[in-house]
């Protein structure tokens, strides 16, 4: 019998080293998509700038929770401490950014670090604010909403984005809605023909457990306002597309600057037109 082996990836993944005196962008990545999705961003940054991804998925206490029913035995501040440790030695000058739930972690990091170590601004990539008004109980995450997000995620993950008709899954529930997603994914080439429904169900359940984990980590977290200006980039098809601030205003006493980019919550990380919006903002921050 071959022995198990430790293939755990490092938390800090350097995609591109900064040239002497040039800026390093640190992006907090909360999983769902592989950290390699940020390869395109590294290439889109100006020559000489570096990119390091801080991958929450490399932290066992976080990653395992998506496989064990969505309950993590940790907290946002504790995870932020792990990420700050992984950043050492910090390469300056630097920009800190966070995608999705990674934005919540990035905010916690700025609260935990000494003032003289803080970056000039914090860049939030389609991240929902951890404020009381924007926290949702688990039961508020209804199947219609989750199936739509899951289809968006699956299309991005497989490099074959696909849409669902406006009423394709409305009111169907998971059991009846998931076959609709399966058919659309196969038609778009995102899944192989013959992909079994129980297999897709496992993928869906794991995806939802990852969302629940982040939801439950956010619920008890009571952040103080950000100690620096915030920059928010919202995808055209954001998880909450009709909300222009994603709840960040009360946490931004030093200012909130908003930008929009093409794509959805997931494809915004890889589409060249979206990276064309994001990369200059990270460089300027």
């Amino acid at each position, binding site marked *: 019998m071959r022995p198990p082996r430790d293939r755990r990836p490092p938390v800090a993944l350097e995609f591109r080293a900064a040239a002497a005196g040039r800026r390093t962008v640190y992006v907090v990545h909360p999983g769902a998509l592989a950290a390699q999705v940020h390869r395109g961003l590294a290439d889109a940054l100006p020559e000489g700038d570096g990119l390091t991804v801080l991958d929450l998925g490399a932290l066992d206490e976080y990653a395992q929770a998506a496989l064990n029913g969505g309950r993590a035995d940790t907290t946002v501040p504790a995870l932020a401490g792990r990420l700050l440790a992984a950043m050492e030695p910090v390469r300056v000058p630097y920009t800190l950014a966070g995608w999705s739930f990674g934005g919540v972690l990035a905010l916690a990091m700025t609260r935990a670090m000494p003032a003289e170590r803080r970056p000039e601004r914090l860049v939030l990539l389609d991240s929902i604010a951890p404020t009381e008004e924007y926290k949702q109980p688990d039961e508020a995450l209804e199947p219609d909403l989750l199936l739509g997000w899951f289809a968006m995620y699956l299309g991005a993950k497989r490099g074959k984005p696909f849409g669902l008709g406006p009423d394709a899954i409305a009111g169907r529930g998971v059991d009846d809605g998931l076959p609709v997603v399966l058919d659309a994914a196969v038609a778009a080439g995102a899944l*192989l023909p013959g992909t*079994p429904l129980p*297999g897709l169900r*496992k*993928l869906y359940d794991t995806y939802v457990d990852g969302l629940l984990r982040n939801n439950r980590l956010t619920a008890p977290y009571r952040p103080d306002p950000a100690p620096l200006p915030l920059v928010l980039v919202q995808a055209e098809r954001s998880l909450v597309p009709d909300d222009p601030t994603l709840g960040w205003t009360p946490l931004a006493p030093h200012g909130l600057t908003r930008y929009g980019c093409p794509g959805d919550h997931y494809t915004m990380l890889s589409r060249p037109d979206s990276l064309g919006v994001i990369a200059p903002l990270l460089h300027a921050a």
Partner: protein
Amino acid sequence: MAAVTASEAETWLIEKIALRLGVAPGEVSREVYFDELDLDSTEALILAGELENWLGFELSTTTLWYHPTIKDLASYLAEESDRRATAA
């Protein structure tokens, strides 16, 4: 459900993995580590769900860690399947 034998589990795993990789079953080694196969995490989870459906019971998240090859996993699945069939 009747217990699954190690040979049956091995055949099932090789056929499904070969299908996903687009290769002939004979090209899938029983000894290679799962993470050396060209399966991304999406395919691996879909395969795990299909496997659980076939076996009729859920697998622990650490199963592939402790049984990291087709040969090792098939052997474990046969033991676990037999234990559950006997207990039923």
